[in-house]
């Protein structure tokens, strides 16, 4: 499915950056929104006329309504909205750092609400569009290592599900994508087998127009089907 116009929040690196590249190469006019302007400028240079760069920190939620209007005006419409911003600072297993946790809450949750509400409200009126939240397999279960990250992604999944149930009657598609470990800045401290950002983005793009929650690999779908069903008394004894 080809989208004419798209907004990607968190477009300067990782999966978001690759999503911009893929969509722009398919002919979509993409608004790339992120904090790091020089990295957005590289995308603009790579796809002149197809990528529009907007410097924005998702912590500045006050800017969102006006910026959203400006972006949609410049795009000439909106067919696809992807909230991809996310942070996951390294947290030790015995650490309870309030500041790190608040960063995750603000970027992964508050920023998502600020932007997705705008997109959802618009789509409800225009009666078309795809609203996409990039969640994580981490949101499927409360694990020991990243309590607030897990909770923030669980929030996103639940929030997107509510959006889906609200907006389906208006013909709007709401897609939640749950990547596993991906080789990006976010997961650079994680030592495990990772999918490349390009590969993850390529799979993500195929899921944008499908309502529901989507894993990027069959293995994840299978593994998390089981993990979600492990009884709590057993799960807390595991090192997952």
């Amino acid at each position, binding site marked *: 499915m080809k989208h004419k116009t798209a907004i990607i929040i968190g477009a300067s690196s990782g999966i978001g950056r690759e999503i911009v590249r893929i969509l722009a190469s398919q002919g979509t006019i993409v608004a790339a929104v992120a904090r790091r302007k020089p990295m957005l400028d590289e995308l603009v240079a790579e796809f002149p006329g197809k990528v529009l760069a907007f410097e924005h920190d998702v912590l500045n939620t006050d800017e969102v309504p006006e910026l959203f*209007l400006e972006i949609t005006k410049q795009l000439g*419409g*909106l067919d696809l909205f992807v909230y991809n911003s996310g942070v996951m600072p390294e947290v030790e297993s015995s650490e309870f750092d309030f500041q790190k946790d608040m960063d995750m809450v603000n970027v992964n949750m508050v920023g998502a609400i600020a932007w997705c509400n705008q997109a959802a409200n*618009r789509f409800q*009126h*225009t*009666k*078309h569009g795809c609203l996409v939240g990039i969640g994580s397999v981490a949101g499927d279960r409360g694990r020991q290592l990243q309590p607030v990250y897990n909770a923030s992604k669980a929030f996103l999944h639940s929030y997107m599900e509510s959006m889906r149930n609200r907006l389906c009657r208006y013909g709007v598609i709401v897609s939640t994508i749950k990547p596993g470990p991906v080789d990006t800045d976010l997961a650079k401290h994680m030592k495990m087998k990772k999918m490349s950002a390009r590969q993850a983005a390529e799979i993500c793009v195929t899921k944008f127009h499908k309502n529901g929650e989507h894993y990027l690999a069959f293995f994840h779908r299978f593994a998390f089907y089981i993990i979600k069903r492990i009884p709590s008394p057993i799960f807390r004894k595991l090192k997952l």
Partner: protein
Amino acid sequence: MSSVDLSVDRLDRISGFGQAEYADAFVYRPTTVEEIHAVFETARKSGRKVTLRGAGRSYGDANTGAENLVLDITRMNRILSWDAATGIVDCEAGVTIENLWRHCLEDGWWPPVVTGTMYPTLGGLLAMNVHGKNNYCQGTFGEHILDIDVAYSDGKFETLKASDSRFFEVISSAGLLGVITRAKLQMHHVASGNLKVLAEAAHNWDEEFALFEHYENDADYMVSWVECFGRGAKAGRGQFHAAWYPDRVDLQSRKPESQDLPPLLMGFFPKSMMWKVLKWFCNRPGMRFVNWAKWMASSTIGNHKIHEQPLVAFSFLLDYVPDWRRAYEPGGFIQYQSFVPKEHAKRVFAEQVRLQQEYRLESYLGVLKRHRRDKFLLTHAVDGYSLALDFKVTKRNRARLWELAHKINDLVLKAGGRFYFAKDSTLRPEDAATYLGEALTQFKEVKRQVDPEGLLTSDLAERIEIVD
């Protein structure tokens, strides 16, 4: 002057009647001239542009403006005065043809020019300066207007009469110079609510054109259906209709209840369901069959028939099947109408139909009409003929359909032909520049004077680059 809000509640997804292209826009439905000026003020403050829209009956993108403020005049729909002695009616621009005939026909007056549907607004009719099946003898809609009120984007407001040169610039300008808010119209006197209609089968292009030439000095209306699947000796076959206003006074036939189309087809099938049946046939083999069946009926039982038909039934063929455009969903359709001088018309239209067949993209409906010149600035009319075609749009055929349309554009331009904003979806900037010629330069100059900030635009205007 106060401005109005730019709220998401105003956002709507709109399209032309063909539904082949959509745009999201902030829609405003003002009821007064002051509210119109307030919309311009909001556009100015928000750095956006304004697109004018009536009933949304232009087929392509003339009435849409992505992310613009769309000024929809359908709520300005009051008939301000009506003189049954002179047939002069003064209306707000949101009044539709249907409102007009329902109001005036009982007194013996009918709109002098009508489109194939009764739902367009006066504002839309004048923006496009539409024609009807009597264009060759009655000219365009604008030729029957006594005066209009126009609200400009800079806050000015003026009344234009047919003696003003600007009158001929604003009418036909596709809503790009100013908002027509009121129009005074001279209606046409009719003794009866019926027409005397003659149906004749035409077996090929030669016969089609011969019938038009035979009846053009006599008939009040002429139109011909053209079957676009016919090849070789059968190419151009169709059914010609000529119609005359009867002289006999018939008060009963002028009542709206005598004109209203029945809700059932053949006495039992609800018309509201008909589009669902049409949808089954809305493909190449299906339409080949429908066209063949219509031709068989036209050339046998329907041939050489003279019958009386209500004005509404003859004039508004497109309203016979409610929601008929839904048969073309999900991709919609485009209407393609080109106007070719009479000396080249037969050759150009024959070549158009041959090209469609070569591309295997035959029009599901072809309508041939006779036209005359007029003096409106961005006019579409020529002393010649037009062929209107309906093409279904799908994801798969879209690129090829546009390629075909561009080839036909070239044919038409080479023959000195013209195009019609109300029906266009495929013109390129160079095509518009070629056929408009000097008129385009003059139009841009007028636009700089009356809309100095360039607030008025539309997706069509941006596509064919007639606004700076």
